[in-house]
């Protein structure tokens, strides 16, 4: 049974290359079929080029459907992405959300049935436990180890690997003192 979300494009710049890339990267982590509809026009949700043709302006209704064996997980991950403006931070008060990388990790991890643990040094935490992640205290440029075990391990690993690869999509420079 397909799942459908009816949302609105919130970011001022609309559904352009950067949000499209993020959407397709995450959609491709799942086996389920994903379709996106904007202003009556539908395109496959895993194709950047086709999504670019949808002209997703700010304020337009944005709906997507997910259908397949991992549709629930895909739906949760993609809904979170869309509701959070595809993590496009052009208008975000970044100082007010210094640990948004932990919010993103916990929310994505929470979409999966598998057990997911995050480790930094000798400490580890349940990735779905936001408070525990706070105590673990890693920064968006750190590279924590993530271990996944469970029925949707493959999808969870792909999504979380993407999150780590792009530094949780935090659009800030790593402080000079920390740059390697």
């Amino acid at each position, binding site marked *: 049974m397909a799942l459908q979300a009816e949302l609105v494009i919130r970011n001022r*710049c*609309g559904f352009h290359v*950067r949000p499209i890339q993020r959407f397709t*990267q995450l959609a491709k982590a799942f086996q389920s079929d994903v379709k996106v509809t904007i202003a009556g026009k539908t395109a496959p949700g895993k194709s950047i080029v086709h999504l670019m*043709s949808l*002209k*997703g302006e700010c304020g337009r209704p944005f709906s997507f459907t997910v259908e397949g064996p991992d549709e629930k997980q895909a739906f949760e991950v993609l809904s979170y992405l869309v509701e959070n403006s595809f993590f496009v931070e052009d208008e975000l008060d970044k100082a007010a959300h210094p640990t948004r990388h932990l919010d993103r990790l916990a929310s994505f991890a929470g979409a999966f049935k598998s057990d997911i643990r995050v480790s930094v040094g000798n400490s580890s935490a349940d990735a779905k436990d936001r408070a525990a992640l706070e105590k673990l205290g890693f920064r968006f440029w750190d590279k924590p180890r993530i271990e996944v075990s469970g029925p949707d391990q493959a999808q969870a690993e792909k999504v979380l690997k993407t999150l780590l690869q792009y530094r949780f999509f935090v659009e800030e420079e790593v402080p000079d003192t920390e740059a390697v």
Partner: protein
Amino acid sequence: MGLMDFLAADALCPDLKSTTRDEALAEFLQRLIECGYLDRKDQKALLASLLERERLGSTAIGKGVAVPHCKGKTVPRIIVTFGRSKEGLEFKALDGEPVHAIFMVVYPAERPPEYLQVMESISRVIQNPDFRRFVANAKDGQEILDIIQEMS
């Protein structure tokens, strides 16, 4: 308005000399400056913006095509240019393929409403199954221009 209204037709780079992504982006800007679309004093800032955008995520969208883009405070309007690299450029594409066809877009700080329309037009060109083959075989910039016009 369509893609051809924004394309810097006389500033295309049908045979990019650069061997790296960063050099290619600089080459595009240099060409736009030489043809009068941009001011030389903005070159450094625009290159930095293009590279910053690549840092957020590669603009290589797969199958050998990239759409690097950025805004600039002194960019007067949306400017699109196109370049071809016969050898291919490493753009950190998700599919791992080198990039041979590049649409570069620069636009004013206040993104004009036509921007998404331009992206839509570019996507229409890229979606054409013959686009990459025709561009690869085109003999010069005029032929590439004709291909883009026909497909947009």
